[in-house]
């Protein structure tokens, strides 16, 4: 019997890519897609990399495909925005070796800045989208996506969602298929997208979509489960599981290909059921198309466009069941916070003291928007801190932004922040940029990047020096400061924001959770000296709590002896000791 294993959705996607014979994979980390690359790297015979951003990743995969090998790129939904440029044109070029772009959407926004639906981008770019419903399908559909890609000469998007990516289910393992590489042939009509050629390719793209629409009913990833016909569901992805959980007897058209839609199959199914319900998370992508064909159906008038779906949602909204649930108890919220010993906390403590606003960016450090640090004023997208600060200065003048800075992490700076800094240098900007350099991509769980000196495959490599990179852009005021030294931080920030020039302050200290970090010491309170002023508690370090008598306790299992609380105490009532 074939081996079967319990696998995370992302692990199964990586397994599917391996079994499909993928040879090149490029990605930028982003929850909930990161574990795909981290799992893929364990298989021999696959080249895997972290690219600086998603656009680069899709272009790397494109090149590999053009010379005839199976390739892939992985990213979270917002990453596809960055990669849109190559996506829309690779749609015209098509493939030699199969090419799959895995995109992970985040309904419910567990770890994202918006809730966009990748199926819409699939439609807009005229790229087919497949969507699995569990770990087994994640593996199977990945393989099928490569077949589709080669058969229809198109890149294919495999769409997942957080719930699928981060849930585990049983998967049957199979052997790797070794595809024969397609020999390269120079073909400028297909590979050089200048107007004359692109005009011809647009025709091919439309024909390809029409072929897929016609073939949809015969694709094994689209399936009709005809049972009780009083209600029929059209559904896809994880939403299918909620239907099966609540109404296993209902008829279901389960779509694996969610763009383009198999129109004839949908029309036939609609004709067989009395009431047609479209059950799809996020946008009414299927519903609006089905309605445009004149088919009566219900969808978003019953179910929301927002957040994750659930089985209880069907029970309550569709079946009108009274679930007699207990009322939820009112309890204090527990939002995520910076870890004990996090170097960002130290930088934010200084910015907070100086009453400086920060244009923020994407990473753990976005948490600095919340109380008690309350430093970040804006967060848009990767790299936007620097460019939005630039826009503020151009709108309001250099004096206006003297109590503003941009804060951006090292990985985000390498992703797209460097472009924005180039712009500041070119367009005669003033303003202070703080690069919070913790030597890793922190939020997604410690991935390497172009400035860490190690590749995804674990090999040592040239570590781009951020200081020199910034200097090379023509910026004179570049300073490296220890992130835990609040005195030096305060001096440097105060001095630099006052200048009518560009300044870049690189605060350096590795993420406390980085592997190999050892903390031999701990901070210990000295209650006799404590004046109960609470200065040490201000930055909100989770290792510190106030005792009933007003003195403090420090949890020794959490404390990394970063010394921030010690520096804030004016009474020497906190000391460092060996653990």
């Amino acid at each position, binding site marked *: 019997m074939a081996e079967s294993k*319990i696998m*995370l959705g992302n692990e199964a996607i990586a397994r599917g890519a391996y079994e499909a014979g993928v040879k090149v994979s490029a990605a930028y980390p982003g*929850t*909930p897609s*990161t*574990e795909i690359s981290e799992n893929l790297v364990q298989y021999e015979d696959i080249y895997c990399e972290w690219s600086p951003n998603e656009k680069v990743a899709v272009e790397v995969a494109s090149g590999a495909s053009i010379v005839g090998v199976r390739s892939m790129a992985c990213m979270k939904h917002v990453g596809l925005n960055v990669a849109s440029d190559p996506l829309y044109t690779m749609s015209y070029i098509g493939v030699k070796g199969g090419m799959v772009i895995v995109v992970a959407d985040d309904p419910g926004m*567990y*770890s994202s800045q918006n809730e966009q639906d990748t199926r819409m981008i699939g439609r807009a770019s005229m790229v087919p989208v497949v969507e699995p419903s*569990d770990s087994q399908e994640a593996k199977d559909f990945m393989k099928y996506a490569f077949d589709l890609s080669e058969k229809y000469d198109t890149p294919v998007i495999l769409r997942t969602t957080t*719930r699928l990516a*981060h*849930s*585990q*289910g*049983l998967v049957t393992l199979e052997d790797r298929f070794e595809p024969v590489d397609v020999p390269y042939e120079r073909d400028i009509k297909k590979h050089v997208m200048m107007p004359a050629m692109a005009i011809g390719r647009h025709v091919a793209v439309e024909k390809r979509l029409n072929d897929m629409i016609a073939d949809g009913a015969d694709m094994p990833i689209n399936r009709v489960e005809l049972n009780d016909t009083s209600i029929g569901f059209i559904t896809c992805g*994880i939403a299918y*599981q*909620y239907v*099966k*959980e609540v109404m*296993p007897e209902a008829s279901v058209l389960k779509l694996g290909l969610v763009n383009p839609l198999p129109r004839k199959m949908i029309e036939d199914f609609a004709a067989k059921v009395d009431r047609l319900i479209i059950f799809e998370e996020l946008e009414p992508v299927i519903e609006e198309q089905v309605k445009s064909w004149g088919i009566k159906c219900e969808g978003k008038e019953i179910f929301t466009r927002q957040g994750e779906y*659930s*089985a*209880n949602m069907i029970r309550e909204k569709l079946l009108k069941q009274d*679930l*007699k*649930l*207990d*009322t*939820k*108890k009112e*309890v*204090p*919220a*527990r*939002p*995520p*916070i*910076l*870890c004990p010993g996090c170097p960002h906390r130290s930088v934010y403590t200084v910015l907070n003291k100086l009453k400086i606003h920060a244009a923020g960016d994407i990473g*753990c450090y976005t*948490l600095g928007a*919340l*109380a*008690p640090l309350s430093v970040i004023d804006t967060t848009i997208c990767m790299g936007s801190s620097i460019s939005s600060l630039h826009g503020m200065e151009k709108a309001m003048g250099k004096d206006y932004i003297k109590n503003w800075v941009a804060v951006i992490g090292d990985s985000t700076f390498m992703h797209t922040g460097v472009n924005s800094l180039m712009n500041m240098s070119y367009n005669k900007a003033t303003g202070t940029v703080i690069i919070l350099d913790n030597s890793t991509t922190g*939020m*997604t*769980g410690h991935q390497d990047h172009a400035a860490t000196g190690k590749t995804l495959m674990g090999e040592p490599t040239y570590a781009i020096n951020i200081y020199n990179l910034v200097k090379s852009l023509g910026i004179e005021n570049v300073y490296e400061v220890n992130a835990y030294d609040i005195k030096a931080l305060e001096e440097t920030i105060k001095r630099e924001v006052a200048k009518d020039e560009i300044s870049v302050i690189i605060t350096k200290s590795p993420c406390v959770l980085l592997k190999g970090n050892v903390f031999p010491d701990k901070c210990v309170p000295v209650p006799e000296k404590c004046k109960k002023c609470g200065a040490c*508690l201000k930055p*909100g370090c*989770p290792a510190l*709590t*106030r005792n009933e008598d007003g003195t403090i306790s420090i949890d020794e*299992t959490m404390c990394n002896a970063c010394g921030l609380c010690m520096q804030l105490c004016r009474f020497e009532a906190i000391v460092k000791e060996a653990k």
Partner: protein
Amino acid sequence: MATTNIMIVGVGGQGTLLTSRILGKMATGAGYDVKLSEVHGMAQRGGSVVTYVRYGENVAEPIVEEGQVDVLIAFEKLEALRYLHFVKKDGVIIVNDLRMDPITVVTGQATYPSDILETLEKNRKTIVVDATKKSKEIGSPKSFNVIVLGAAARHMSFAKEDWLKVIETTVPPKTIQKNIEAFEAGYAMSV
């Protein structure tokens, strides 16, 4: 058999993920269909964290919803209270007698409830274990989560030997002995 629904709740960093994976292996080993659901990324950073494990003959959805939990494993008291309404009327709560103030309490925006254990006990069958204290006694403060799991194991249908086998193959090799000790301690605490 009907699907068994388990929910593990705690604070980011307390090991809910490891615990759900041990449970997943237990159920797979027993030949059940299994689904697990986890939380990664931003939510992990010291926030309220939830993982789900479902096993039975045929499991469709990977999450457990309100009113459907058979066993709630809580590594912290406030988190048990937060998810109390997820537990079936005849379900059971295993709760670690630990208070960790969320940032909203630390900054004075909210007050930590003083009567959590009473509220839990009044509403559902509740087993309170002081795993934090016990873990210090056995000299392994980080294994408190395995102590809580040991206490919960009494309320699931797997044999003790199978638990021990799975723990051995899941935790880092250096920590096997301490984790076994922790599991045994928890198992002995819950009757």
